Structures are given as C-alpha cells and as structure tokens.
C-alpha cells in the first residue's frame, strides 16, 4: 500500500473511531437507562393521583382516591395490581440505634413487583401478615451497619406513637390537674346574667376546650411497638416520582400500628382533617383516602390504553413509559448531535480520499488508457475507481471500529477506576450495539464511495489516445 493511500485510510480510521466512540457513549447511556427502567419495572408502572383543582382550570369533579377507587382501577383491563401509597411515621430501633423514619405498608404481591425487588440482599416478605420488614440500604447505613448479610434475619423494633380522639376528648374535662369544679369556681355565676360577661366566659371556655383537646390528642400518645425480622435490604437509589419509604412492612402488620388512631405527626392530622377522617373509626378502612396509588400494568397491554381509562375515571396519571418516550427523543437528538460531529470528521477524511484518487488517476492515466484499449467500458473504469475508494473506506471503517472500541474500553476502564474510588455505582458508559457497527460501516463505506464519485468520473473520461501517447 502506498504511503498516500495508507494516510488516507488512516484519516478514515480516525474519523470512524471518533464517530463510533461518540455514538457509543450515547448508546451506552441509553442502554443504562433502558436497563434500569426494565429492572425496576418502570415500563409497567403507572402512578395515579387525585386531581388538584388548585389552579381552577379544571372544573370537573375530583373523585377521592379511596378503596372504592382502588377497586375501580383494579377492574381496568391490563391492570395487574393496584396498591396505594400508605405510610406512617415510625421510630426504628436497629441494634442500639433509634432512627426516626417512615414505614410503608404493602401487600406481599406489591412487594414482589419489580419496583420493590431491587434487593441488595434478601427478599420480600412472605405474606401480608408476616412479621417481617424490608429496609433500605440508606437506613442500614444510618444505623452504622455495613454488612447487609449480617442484617438479614435480625430483629428491628418498629414503634408508632398513636394519638386518639378519645384521649383528646378526655383532656377537655381535665387538664394539668385542674378539675371541672376548680374551673366552675372561677366563674362568677351571678354575673352570668350580664350578656357581655357570659359571652366572654363561653369564648374562654371554648378556647380552653380546644387547647386541651389538641394537647391531649398530640401529647397523650399511646406507643405501639412491634418486633419485626429483616427479610430484605433494598438497594439505594432515587425512584423519581415514586415514593418508597425506608421501611416496608406487610399491610396487615402495618394495620396494627394505625389501629389506635393517628400518629402524632401534624401533617397526618391535617390530612385526616382535610379528608374528613379525623373522627372516623380507624378500623373502618373504607373511609381512608390516599395521596397516590401505584398501578402495575400487564406488560402486553399498551400503557396508553390503561392511562386513558384511568383518566376517564377522573384521576391524574404519571407513566414512566411516557417519560421514557421523552428520554428516547432526547437521546435521538443527542445521538444526532454526536453523529454530526463524527460525520464532519468523516467528511474531512473523504476530501483525503478525493485527493488520493485524483492523484492516482494522474499517475495511472496510462493504465486507464491500456484498459480502454483492451475494451474496458467507461462504466467499468468508473466502477474500478469507486471500488478502490470503497475499499479504502471499508479498511478505514473496520480499523476505525476496532480503534473506536479500543478507545471506549480505555476510557471505560479509567471511568470505572474513578467511580470505584469515589464510591459511585459502577456502570458501563459505552455500548456497541449491532446497529452502531452497521451504521458505521454504511456511513464509512458510503461516504468513501461518494468521495470516489468525482475521481471515478474523471477516470472514466480519460482519453485513451492521450493516455497512450508515447511521450
């Protein structure tokens, strides 16, 4: 191979190496996201929320996300499972460490879905009433435990401070040792005939009664504790719009904690007040409403069909499949941008091919004349030169693919080293899917053949008489 041809091939090699390295980076990230979506079952997960009328733009009635709604959602074709987000504030005692946290109640079926199955160690609980819990990696680390193996099978104590309406009511009559008689003694009974005094006394007593109720409701809590066995440790990671709490407990086991009433958490109290559940009997779950519900979809059913059915029931939805479509769009443009940069390098290399081929024609003018005198048709001469530029492109592309792959391996090894050192979860940044290899081959050879068009036309047009002239 002539030095000039070698250098031209090297130009194609470098351009293709740059082209595939960049596209490989895009493909690697896309693969990572797709794999993560698949592993977490996000393609088959949909979130349902009650409609918010806060902005006033939607005037349609907003149904409650309660047990009845769950049943209606379950009846939609293509819905495998429906489970609400149902969480309580708890204290978790893990060894000697007491940690304030939140616990989420789940059915065993829901806990076995892909969304909750990303385990560092162990597995989901056995049944809805088993005395087991799945805890998160973060909680484990908060407790100062580094070995997940050592935690599986260990007991944790989960406790909830429960406030009841009864304890609030009891405090209306008695507070800080002061009895009803003591309070009556402070009232001037003969002055009650005075309207102004009477109204002042009533207002004062009402204020005191509410204060005493709230005092009793929030402070005179009953502590409910339970000892649960850790059966699984969930891998750390953000789940975006899906709320997964550090402690996951079976739904029937969790019911014990909320059976006494509400936890002392003010947010829960206000939520119960706004939903009209404050004075409901806690053992009546039919009245409970939820802030969000998760739907596990049949993978063979189009998410859009289910989404439309859910929205028709009057709820808002959030689908990861829809979000993935947006991500794919982003990656399409991302890959395009990277591809264009690579293509510019390739076009530059193609100018090298044009130059080499034109030089080659000048040098091989006599050879072209000889071939024509032997009966070569112009198309055959043109084909000969197109094949030559195509071969330069093919050799350059194959070598460029190998070089690009080598570059990505080196960069990947360096990235892995730093990820490990910084404690980041390791991931493969580059991917070489078949479509990338085929695209590189098509682009590399295609651009080279295009670059050969002009020289080939010149070669075909060589005048044999001129070419064979003795001088």
């Amino acid at each position, binding site marked *: 191979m002539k030095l000039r041809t070698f250098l031209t091939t090297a130009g194609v090699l470098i351009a293709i190496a740059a082209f595939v390295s960049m596209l490989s980076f895009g493909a690697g990230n896309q693969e990572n996201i797709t794999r993560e979506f698949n592993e977490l079952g996000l393609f088959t997960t949909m979130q349902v929320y009650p409609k918010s009328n806060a902005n006033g733009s939607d005037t349609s009635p907003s149904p409650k996300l309660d047990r009845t709604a769950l049943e209606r959602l379950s009846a939609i074709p293509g819905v495998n499972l429906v489970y609400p987000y149902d969480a309580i504030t708890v204290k978790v005692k893990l060894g000697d460490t007491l940690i304030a946290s939140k616990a989420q109640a789940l059915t065993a079926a829901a806990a076995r879905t892909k969304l909750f199955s990303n385990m560092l160690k162990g597995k989901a609980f056995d049944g809805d009433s088993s005395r087991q819990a799945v805890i998160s990696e973060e909680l484990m680390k908060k407790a100062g435990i580094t070995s997940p193996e050592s935690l599986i099978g260990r007991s944790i104590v989960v406790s909830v401070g429960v406030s009841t309406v009864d304890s609030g009511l009891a405090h209306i009559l008695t507070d800080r040792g002061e009895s009803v008689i003591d309070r009556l003694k402070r009232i001037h009974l003969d002055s009650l005939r005075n309207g102004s005094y009477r109204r002042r006394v009533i207002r004062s007593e009402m204020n005191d009664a509410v204060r005493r109720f709230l005092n009793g409701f929030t402070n005179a809590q009953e502590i409910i504790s339970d000892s649960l066995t850790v059966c699984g440790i969930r891998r750390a990671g953000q789940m975006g719009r899906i709320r997964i709490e550090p402690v996951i407990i079976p739904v029937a086991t969790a019911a014990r904690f909320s059976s006494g009433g509400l936890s002392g958490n003010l947010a829960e109290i206000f939520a119960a007040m706004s939903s009209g559940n404050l004075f409901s009997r806690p053992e009546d779950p039919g009245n409970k409403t939820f802030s969000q519900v998760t739907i596990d979809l049949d993978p063979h059913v189009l998410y859009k069909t289910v989404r439309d059915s859910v929205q028709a029931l009057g709820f808002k939805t959030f689908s990861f499949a829809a979000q993935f479509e947006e991500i794919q769009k982003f990656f399409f443009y991302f890959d395009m941008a990277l591809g264009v940069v690579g293509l510019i390098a390739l076009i530059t290399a193609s100018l090298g091919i044009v130059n080499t081929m034109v030089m080659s024609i000048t040098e091989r003018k006599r050879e072209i004349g*000889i071939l024509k*005198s*032997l*009966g*070569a*048709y*112009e198309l055959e001469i043109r084909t000969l030169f197109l094949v030559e530029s195509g071969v330069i492109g093919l050799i350059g592309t194959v070598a460029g693919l190998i070089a690009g792959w080598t570059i990505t391996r080196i960069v990947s090894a360096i990235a892995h080293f730093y990820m490990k050192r910084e404690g980041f979860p390791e991931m493969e940044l580059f991917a070489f899917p078949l479509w990338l290899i085929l695209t590189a081959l098509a682009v590399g050879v295609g651009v080279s053949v295009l670059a050969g068009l002009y020289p080939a036309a010149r070669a075909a047009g060589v005048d044999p008489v001129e070419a*064979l002239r*003795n001088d």
Partner: protein
Amino acid sequence: MAAEIRLRTLSLCRYYRRGPQEEVRALDGFTIQVNRGEFLGIVGSSGSGKSTLLNLLAGLDSPTSGSVEFDGVPLSSMSRRQLASYRARNVGMVFQSFNLISHYTALQNVETALYFNFTPPKERRRLAAAVLEQLGLADRMTHRPPDLSGGEQQRVSVARAIVKKPEILFADEPTGNLDYENARQIAAILDTLNREGLTIVMVTHNQEMAQQYAHRIIRMHYGHLAGSTLTRPSAGLMP
C-alpha cells in the same frame, strides 16, 4: 476469388486544434480498405498520421468526418458500449512502448485482455498461459514487466493482443523499441499469426521489415495516401 473487406475507411478526416488559430490535419480524406487475412504495412514519416489512422481504426478515437467500417458496420453508428465491445472482442493492439501494466505479472497482463469479453476466470488463466507458452514465455509468466527484456515485454504485449483471438491486429511500431534480433523475432511471430489467418495492420518505420512480411504497403504523407505497393501475393489482393 474476390477479397472479403474486413475494414474500410471512407474520406476519413481527423483534425486537431493546436491553439486558437492553428488546425492540424492529421488525416485528410483518407480512404483505404483492409481485406480479411491481409498483412497491411503502413509506412510514412513522423507526423504523417499513421498512429492517428490506427487509433481511428481501433475505435479509440473518433474522426472529424468520414467513416470507418468494420465488416460493413460504421464505427460511428456504434454506441460507446458497442465500441468498447468492438475493442474487447474484435481488435488486438500492440504498441511500440509495450503498454503493459507494470504492477501485473506477465500472466495477469495477458489475462486482462480476456476480462472485458467476459471469459470465465479459470478459462482466462488457461488461455493466457497457453499463449505465453506458445510465444516462448512459459518461464516468465510470474515476472513483472520491469523484470523482462524489451523483446520479452513485446512478446507479452503480442500475447495479450492475440489471446482473445481477435479479427484484426493493429501493431503500432511493434519493433520500434527493439534491437535487430528481437525485432526479427516479433516480425516472425506476426508473420506466423498472419499465415494462420489473422488480419494485421502494422505501422512501421522499418521499410525492410514491411517489404519482407506485408502483402501490401501504403505510404502516408501528411494525412494523405501517398502510394500503395503490393509486395507479395495474398488471396484476392488487388494492387
């Protein structure tokens, strides 16, 4: 027996423009005919239009006016593809400077002539080897032109011209670059080929060789036919 005309030119003109003013009349109303099986020698001084005539007869060049007919078919009526096919199947050419492809072996050079008439690869190799052997180059088949002597190179060139069994062979000063002994050998080869029935048109400066081997010699002078001489009898030739 009447001679069968293989090739004929009618008032053949080929003019070139040299600069904006000057017109060179390489051929100016040239009419000849070449009969089947004839060995025609064309002689003339440099610039008389011999090579131009050969290029026009071989279909490598197009006339300014007039026509060339091969077996009664004007070359000007042929498409470019048909002209290429005419060169690939009917015409063999031998050049003064051999015009071999320097990076091909002798065998590959000869095989190339069969590529354009679509001879299958195995047959190409067999025929090329046989012709080289016939011309005494059996032990030079894998040699490249720079490794061969002038005489050997011209024999390879002749082998390339005849391997496709053409109807007519055009030789443009085939011995011009050779010493006496090699020139004699090449002339003898051409004579043998002619005796086997091949029509040959040879341009040469070598009057002696033309006298010895050609049936007829035509003289050219500045694009015109200056004379024609019958040197030895051939079937159906008229002086």
